[in-house]
């Protein structure tokens, strides 16, 4: 374990990314509005991107950034599809929360 210094070393970025990820997880688990849940998922993706970029810098490898590029593209596509689904479900019922979509109850 390296000593904590106030200089923003790679570890700091990674720790920040971890915290961000945790906040995103908490949000997904706690919020009921589907759109807000989606936004928290975006938070998590961003956290991952951040850690990739930090490590790309640390390891001096351009591949890290390439990955982030692709992640962003896929995230965009995913948002499109996800929002489309939400729209089609919520068209009729505007007071929908995640809890009302309990059709998979066993």
């Amino acid at each position, binding site marked *: *374990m*390296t000593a904590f210094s106030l200089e923003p070393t*790679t*570890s700091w970025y*990674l*720790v*920040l990314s*971890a*915290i*961000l*990820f*945790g*906040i*995103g*997880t*908490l*949000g997904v*688990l*706690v*919020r009921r*509005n589907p*759109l*807000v849940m*989606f*936004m*928290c998922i*975006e*938070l998590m993706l*961003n956290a991952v991107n*951040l850690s990739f*970029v*930090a490590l*790309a*810098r640390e*390891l*001096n*490898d*351009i*591949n890290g*950034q390439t990955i*982030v*590029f*692709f992640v*962003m*593209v*896929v995230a*965009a*596509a995913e*948002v*499109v*599809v996800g*929002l*489309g689904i*939400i*729209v089609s479900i*919520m*068209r009729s019922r*505007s007071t*929908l929360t995640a*809890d009302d979509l309990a059709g998979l109850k066993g």
Partner: protein
Amino acid sequence: MILVGAVGVIVRKHPVHAALSLVLTLFGVAVLFVAQEAHFLAAVQVIVYAGAIVVLFLFVIMLLGVDRVENLRTEPLSGQRPLAVLASLGLVAVLITAILRGNQIFNERGTGLNLPDSQNGPDANTVQLAESIFSQYVVAFEVTSVLLVIAVVGTVLLTRRTRAATE
């Protein structure tokens, strides 16, 4: 700033407020990208993420009128909140432990980042990134473009209203 924004996303009752907090976070991340010599990505982050995706969110909120305020005080599922806090804290703890432990194994791998300095020119990062994408990962690139098309087509299909439903 990032953290403030993130916390804001999960805490704000009004979805529009949450979206705006998200924008805050995204900007912060973009700044950090620049600090990590990923200039192209920072630009893409702002344009695509903060620009397109969040706008999309806001459009949907507007269209569907889901701006009803969520009641954050109650939690219908018992035990969900404490357990959720536990889970995320646990996750963070595990990740941090891993990070701190794994410090020693970092070593040089790649051929090095081209930094935009006098030697390589101001677009060095972009150039290098482009080289990587279009040569080594060109297949992935093509596939991603197909993915985008499929996503769009799929969504249009999904949200289509048939004649009978509209009446």
